[in-house]
């Protein structure tokens, strides 16, 4: 796509082509995106879902219950 063609197109089309052409012409970037993809999968799907639940949410349903739980932890200790 020539520069002239790009300038005739709308803003969002230019943004789309910025990313589309950029990703297509990547060399080392493809390896990096693969690493980023694997990393995000490990972080958010495996680690977050299996090992890092929100502790208070797993114990309590409402904010009031969370307040009571923390009050017990801090005041009754």
């Amino acid at each position: 796509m020539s520069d002239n063609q790009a300038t005739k197109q709308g803003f969002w089309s230019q943004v789309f082509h910025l990313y589309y052409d950029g990703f297509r012409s990547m060399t080392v970037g493809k390896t990096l995106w693969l690493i980023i993809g694997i990393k995000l999968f490990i972080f958010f799907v495996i680690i977050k879902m299996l090992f890092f639940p929100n502790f208070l949410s797993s114990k309590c349903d409402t904010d009031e219950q969370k307040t009571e739980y923390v009050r017990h932890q801090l005041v009754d200790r």
Partner: protein
Amino acid sequence: MEELINVVDWSRAQFALTAIYHWLFVPLTLGLGIIVAVMETIYLKTKSEKWLATTKFWMTIFGVNFAIGVATGIILEFEFGTNWSNYSWFVGDIFGAPLAVEGILAFFMESTFIAVMFFGWKKVSPKFHLAATWLTAIGASLSALWILVANAWMQYPTGCEFNPATMRNEMTSFAAVALSPMAVSKFLHTVLSAWTLGGVFVCGVCGWMMLKKRNMDHCWRSLKVGAWVGVIGIVMTMITGDTSAVTVAKYQPMKLAAMEGLYKGNHEQSIVAFGILNPSKQAFDEQDPYLFDISIPYGLSFLATHDFHAFVPGIEDIINGKSYDNEGNEINTVSYAERMERGKQLQEMMAQYDQAARSGNQVVADSLKTAINADFKHFGYAYLDKPEEAIPNVPLTFYTFHFMVTVGGYLMLFLLLALFFVYKPQILAKAKWAKWWHILAIVTVPLTYLCSASGWIVAEVGRQPWTIQDLMPNKVAISDLSAGYVQITFWIFAVVFTALLIADIGIICKQISKRSQTNLDTVND
């Protein structure tokens, strides 16, 4: 109780592991971001294809490091919610607000402009591209700002009020949180130290290429920018380090005492230039804290207060609540024993508040809330079993502080010499020892990373046992988890982050090696 201590230790180890790994990626992003932006600015001024080639070379390295490092910090937020749930609830919106601003800035600034930076060379005007490069660099620093504001609040909680109805701290002044002396000095010291690391990294990579006699002109161009950014970075890091010391002396005197291994303070207090601590020394045991030390007279008094004659309290003085003015008159501050007592009274007041609120006695509840907030700075001391529990790990704080300062002094010398050689290249060209200079430049890169990590160890270990200074010790901040559960995730992180680090170093080395064999005086892609 034994189990709880194990959970605290493992959770701390896990947080330290993930934070240190995360911090391996961040300073290079911050430092190289500025260096690349300066290089592109020179290219736009000179219109020289050589500068364009040099800019693109370093932009690739920046991109690799950014891509591998991105999202490694998100793990820390997972840990807050799981391992540190009491803390996460207790900090309320104070921690959430800066992190939300960081998320928005990181997403909109970095992810938008970094795309223009890498994909936009032929799509946008040169000036717009340059603006995108600068905005990426500035955006990265602004992201760091909000994380550091949140960290600074944990070191010096301010701009907030405790609400016993919700058991949360509520922000009363965003400006007080964002512009606290601790936040400002921490941000400047951290970001400018990243400039230093970026400059040293450029010197190290160029050292390797010059050792291989590859693209010498490109190396000299790179060194010109790298050495300047590095010198400005290290000079400003030292200046802001001085400001940080004054801030720590004022708000975290126990940390300063641990940094110096100082048990009994004095007027005109000397500073240890080099020392070996007495490993059997305990507070109040009358043993000499050092096996050997070389000290600079008046040094610590000046560093802490900018007054050569001022009194600097030691660990025992702080615990006893003793300090002195310049005339030698005793100033009684609050001893840790008294703070523990007041902390326990606050706990009782919170229980009374709960009863008053439940019985609908709002007048009493309001009065208790006011009383709680008036003395709240002592709250965390309620959980200490003895005053000595508030002493951080002195050897670790002392040695990492002195390592950081020593390497910082070396970096100043190294970067000034690197800058000197940039303007007198013939000296290095003729020198028989040039090879050793290049090797030194390579070795200095990991040394600078260690220096940077040491700074964080001083900041975080030096404030132990507090998760939030004076308000919440680790053993209260922690979730009721089993130690085994935390150990599993510790080792998972150790494996994942090590793999990422190997990938980062491997890809960066491969790119440097590959690209250094092409002609970097012309644009190759």
